[in-house]
């Protein structure tokens, strides 16, 4: 059964190309591939595939949440906790408790300190009290939360997905955003988050805690927050608004018709950055398979070329508008191989702090239901999502 998955993987070459649903003579395998691991579930009967896929991702998220990372070794080291978790998350194949807060109430995440204490005192990772979260009508929040410093932080993270063509014209661009929250407030606070320009948000999906009705009528986010980190909202900025493209790329990658070499010349400059600094600039170019090696000079940052995957990676760092980073040099191509048909596409990664490129602004956060004054903070970051330049 599992064997057929590995067969499929071998056939596909790249694990990303393994179909999420496989049919074996007696079973259906529904799998996800995450962090170099396959999470597989087996079913014999009809079930909505997304139901399973979504659940498997939730499982992986939970592992990530509990163990800090989700890798083979971590899962092997924590088999018992994994078992306990799955036991709570599933009952006879039907999802039971998938809310991180509820799970943490039942099974405490392992920490080094706790494991030391546990070995000394014989304590356990399993909550001494029975979980009550599942019983309440706010299952995402534990009762009796107490903090000395009450704080609520919100990160507005926007990603630009774009395809630019050879000449730099935007073929397609859109902005996806999420608001990640870290709320550490005592008691049962009821928060209301409002925006200066909620009309920007075109398509939204919420954490279950958000009251949909109020969003519909007033365009404010009203919610009793889960305790700790969670994703409050993900949104899409309406495509009618023009998307600002923060950088431009001047590129010339060419392969000679005869002879075994090619040229590469890439310059990156700022375009619409709203006066902010572009950081963590990184360029990734998957080269054609026939490229043997590269011989380049970067005016800024460092480049590496992976000989097996043929991926050229240029780590630039901060973008200096006065002195534009440039990478140029020659590519050596396998002798005798035909000239590559396609010029490789250029993928760009970047980060701009203190800017939400869509212009979204949080106007205020109000708290009801509790007396104390919390610390509040909003941070904005813009990143490149799937930002691709065709050549």
């Amino acid at each position: 059964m599992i064997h057929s998955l590995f067969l499929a993987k071998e056939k596909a070459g790249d694990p990303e190309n393994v179909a999420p649903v496989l049919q074996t003579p007696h079973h259906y395998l529904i799998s996800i591939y995450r962090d170099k691991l396959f999470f597989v579930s087996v079913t014999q009967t009809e079930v909505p595939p997304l139901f399973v896929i979504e659940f498997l991702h939730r499982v992986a998220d939970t592992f990530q949440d509990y163990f800090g990372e989700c890798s083979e070794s971590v899962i092997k080291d924590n088999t018992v906790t994994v078992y306990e978790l799955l036991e709570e998350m599933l009952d006879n194949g039907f999802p039971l408790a998938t809310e991180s807060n509820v799970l943490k109430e039942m099974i405490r995440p392992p920490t080094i300190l706790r494991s030391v204490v546990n070995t000394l005192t014989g304590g356990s990772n399993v909550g001494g009290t029975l979980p009550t979260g599942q019983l309440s009508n706010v299952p995402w929040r534990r009762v009796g939360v107490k903090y000395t410093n009450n704080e609520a932080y919100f990160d507005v993270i926007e990603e630009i997905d774009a395809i630019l063509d050879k000449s730099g014209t935007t073929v397609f661009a859109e902005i996806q955003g999420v608001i990640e929250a870290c709320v550490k407030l005592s008691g049962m606070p009821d928060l209301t988050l409002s925006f200066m320009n909620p009309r920007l948000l075109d398509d939204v999906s919420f954490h279950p805690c958000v009251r949909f009705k109020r969003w519909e009528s007033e365009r404010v986010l009203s919610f009793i927050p889960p305790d700790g980190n969670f994703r409050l909202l993900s949104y899409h900025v309406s495509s009618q608004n023009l998307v600002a493209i923060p950088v431009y790329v001047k590129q010339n990658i060419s392969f000679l018709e005869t002879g075994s070499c090619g040229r590469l010349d890439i310059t990156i400059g700022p375009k619409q950055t709203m006066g902010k600094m572009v950081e963590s600039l990184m360029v990734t170019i998957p080269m054609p398979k026939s490229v043997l090696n590269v011989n380049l000079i970067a005016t800024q940052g460092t480049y590496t070329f992976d000989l097996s995957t043929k991926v050229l990676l240029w780590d630039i760092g901060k973008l200096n508008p006065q002195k534009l980073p440039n990478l140029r040099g020659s590519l050596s191509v396998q002798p005798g191989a035909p000239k590559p048909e396609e010029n490789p596409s250029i993928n760009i990664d970047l980060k701009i702090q203190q800017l939400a490129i869509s212009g979204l602004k949080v106007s205020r956060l109000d708290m009801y239901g509790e007396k104390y004054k919390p610390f509040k903070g909003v941070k904005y970051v813009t990143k490149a999502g799937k930002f691709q330049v065709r050549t």
Partner: protein
Amino acid sequence: MSSSSAFNDEKGGSSSVGEPEYGHDPASGGIFSSDYKRHDDLKEMLDSNKDSLKLEAMKRIVAMIARGKNASDLFPAVVKNVACKNIEVKKLVYVYLVRYAEEQQDLALLSISTFQRGLKDPNQLIRASALRVLSSIRVTIIVPIMMLAIKEAASDMSPYVRKTAAHAIPKLYSLDPEQKDQLIEVIEKLLADKTTLVAGSVVMAFEEVCPERIDLIHKNYRKLCNLLIDVEEWGQVVIINMLTRYARTQFLNPNINESLLEEGGGGEKTFYGSDEDEDEDDEEKEKEKKVEAAAMAKRKPYVMDPDHRLLLRNTKPLLQSRNAAVVMAVAQLYFHLAPKAEVGVIAKALVRLLRSHSEVQYVVLQNVATMTIKRRGMFEPYLKSFYIRSTDPTQIKILKLEVLTNLANETNISTILREFQTYIKSMDKDFVAATIQAIGRCATNIGEVRDTCLNGLVQLLSNRDELVVAESVVVIKKLLQMQPEKHSDIIKHMAKLTDNIQVPMARASILWLIGEYCEHVPKIAPDVLRKMAKSFTNEEDIVKLQILNLAAKLYLTNSKQTKLLTQYVLNLAKYDQNYDIRDRARFIRQLIVPTEKSGALSKYAKKLFLALKPAPVLESPFKDRDHFQLGSLSHLLNAKAGGYQELPDWPETAPDPSVRNVEVPEWTKCSSREKRKEKKVEKPFYSDSEGESGPTESADSESDSASGSESGSGSEGSGTGSESEESEEASVSEEEDEEEEKKTKKRESKKPVQESESEQSSEEEDRKRERKSKQRKSESESESDEEEDSESDSSQSESEDSESEAEIKKKKKAAESKPPSKPVKKDTKKEKKEMSLLDLDDFEPTPSPQVTPVNNLLSNSLVTDLEGLSLSDAVLSPATIAPSSALKSYELLHRITGEGLSVEYCFSRQPFSPDANMVAVQMHFTNNSTSDTKNLHMEDVKLQSGMRVKDFPEIELLPAGEKATAVMGIDFCDSTQAANFQLCTHTRKFFVSIQPPVGELMRPVFLTENEFKKEQGQLMGMNEIAEKLTLDAKCRNEHAIVQRVTTAANLSRVPCGSDKECRFAGRTVTSGSLVLVTVASREEGAAQLMVNCEKMLIGTMLVKDILLALTQ
């Protein structure tokens, strides 16, 4: 739902996890012995008193299970600890127990008593967990115990325990299917549960155990719909999927009139939707009459069951869920159940899912691909979201390509082809091949680009990559096969390519093409054969075979020129090294060269070689996949998976909707259907007497306003009376009502007191009469019963009750005691019905809608009435009204200039079915002369660039004194430029021109209030024009405003919470730009008009026109 993660797959899955370790275990026997030893200390640890030791032991045991090692011999030692106080130990024991109980049944029984004790625990969580483990122990002998436990738990006080009971049902069912009947009883009981916690789990049990018992859902249907939003996400998925199936068995197909309505579906459908109630009324009336009931029902416009609407309305917010499975479930529900015009809402949510994990993308794209085949329009705005990135996994790329191909149409094909061009250069060759196929499909589907595509593909023939060339040749071959006569030049071109192209596959394909269509290239074909004969010996085998084929075909069609060549080639082949080729040569020679020996077959050589080969069909692999419920595993695999429940076809006639009525409707929980019934009954009162304080006063004003409206506005008034039912719900005073109230108050003050007294007394009489009539009338019983029910339930204050009674009275009065008004009412109803029938005819694709002016006027007023009413209806579907207001006629040709022929035209506001971008212009021809006019047609159309005209069909004969109508379509390109043309008869030509008022350049669209606001928000600044105005004295109520605006422009009204504001929306016909109009009225007739439109020119002109309409 028996999916389980591999890690937790107790039944066998775990054994494969640990295989590698087994691999070296048997190598050394010592390990076995040490295993035993280890087990010994584990046993010791388990027997100790210290929880920490027990815990450590259990952890090691569970780790063993996880690695796939057999730990079953520890069973006795472990099971002893089932009653352990330490919760973690306990939990691990449960894990162990569930894993091994089936193997060690006898020992497992030891633990049962512990669980039985647990089931009685005062703590609900302990009860639940005991039941959970008990039901997971797969030991047949305890089935009765389980059954008992489940039954008890199903009536537990705690919803959490009841939820666990629901989870236990499928477990028991899989252990012993014979328990089905008893389990169904439990399911039925749990289905009636009112808590959100239980709902998801019990529906899951229902789906697993008895999905065919759809009858169990009836009574719980409305409750499930209403609870849905609060159920946890996994439960939502299960419930939505089940309700989709349910709805398919219980409601009528909302798109049943699709074929009739075709293009303009949107507006019209909601139009019908909005007057549901009224239609029901009609229905009752019909029953009363029992005349032509059957015939009417057949042609009656579709009416959506309110329960159907409830489902659609309550699932819609879930499109915003963060859970992809929930979004998909709602999307498939809308796809399978919603009227065509409303399905569009799911597109945005599905496109959002495309940003999720690649597995989610994969599943969503599969479903989108199926949807795009049926409902292309829905995803067109999101075309760019399906553009492919070089970093996408191949399977995603190919699915996106599929969607792009499905979305291609005349307007976007150039963009799509440009995209495809970049894809062709990709390094991913499978993807390139798929792209070439996609281009082929675009070319077959869209005639306009066929040549472009072909040319593009021909260029690809010189590609270096063999795969690309082969794929292109195959696709070209297919394309040419469809219409070879047109493309002899391409065949010629390909013939030339044989000099350059070296890829054998491509050469072979070209040769096949030339052979197949040698008659289209009679000169070139023999020449190609000549060249091929020359190079024959150096060709690859597949090419040689095709050379033989070519030679044979040429010999049969053109033996004069090719006889020798063929002989030569056959001779060469005869001595070829490859036996296939030698065989083929022998075979062909026998077949085509007539000798004495050759058999009967050679007569048929032509038929054998030159038979017409069927053109290959290029169609989407996703065609017809929608017979599987979307989002299901079966749909994804395109094969039925075990346990898949077929999505039934819509029933021909709707089953009795009353099965969903709940016997004891409580006021608070009363489902919308009852509410609406209530409304229906009470409405006439409210609309008349709303806002009045005292009962006596209200009685007064009621009668007043009634008489006022009846006498004053005649047929129109009666329309309001009967149809206003829906608006009552909203109960926020409508402007109309206010107006009336004001009027009545004024009158009141003037009137002498005695009159009101007499009124009252007459009313009392009426009441008595009415009661009698109630007894008499058996048909009305059901209705009145419900009335009473709802009234008593409503527990409203006495005064209201009396008021409502008065209302009933009034209604009855209107129906009975006032004979003159009665016929009028009925008449209008009848006429209305006719009108709707006529409307239906209008939508038929065939041109020339025969709408007589009288009908138009009537329908307009009625429709505007309806419009006003449906707007404030919050409970019903957000409904718009088919745009229709008095059609203004314009003169095209005067009687005198036309020498007796006069022509008028009007903008019929019907969708012009041959071309959606055209405005339908209805022409009325009148022949006032004494002689017949023949061959009435149009010629010499002069248009501004971009404009297009679809001529009206020629009128062969228009006898003297007769009239005729015809419809033409004009694409004005969103401008008010005139279309000039000549109107020709058999004798004369007349220059005429049609210039549209700006308001006719748009068609109504349906928007909800929120959509309207959102769209408005995006059309600010330059795109917004606001104007202050003073409303005409006759036009100070909502009603009149709506009428005037819709007369001036072809817009539909947008529901709006405020009664001071009227909103309208439309799209320009050609470019589809949104046009949003808001009229906000203030005191004293002051008002503000605001138009938001991307096309500023249109906006400006529209403001002028509407301003004029409102101020005059």
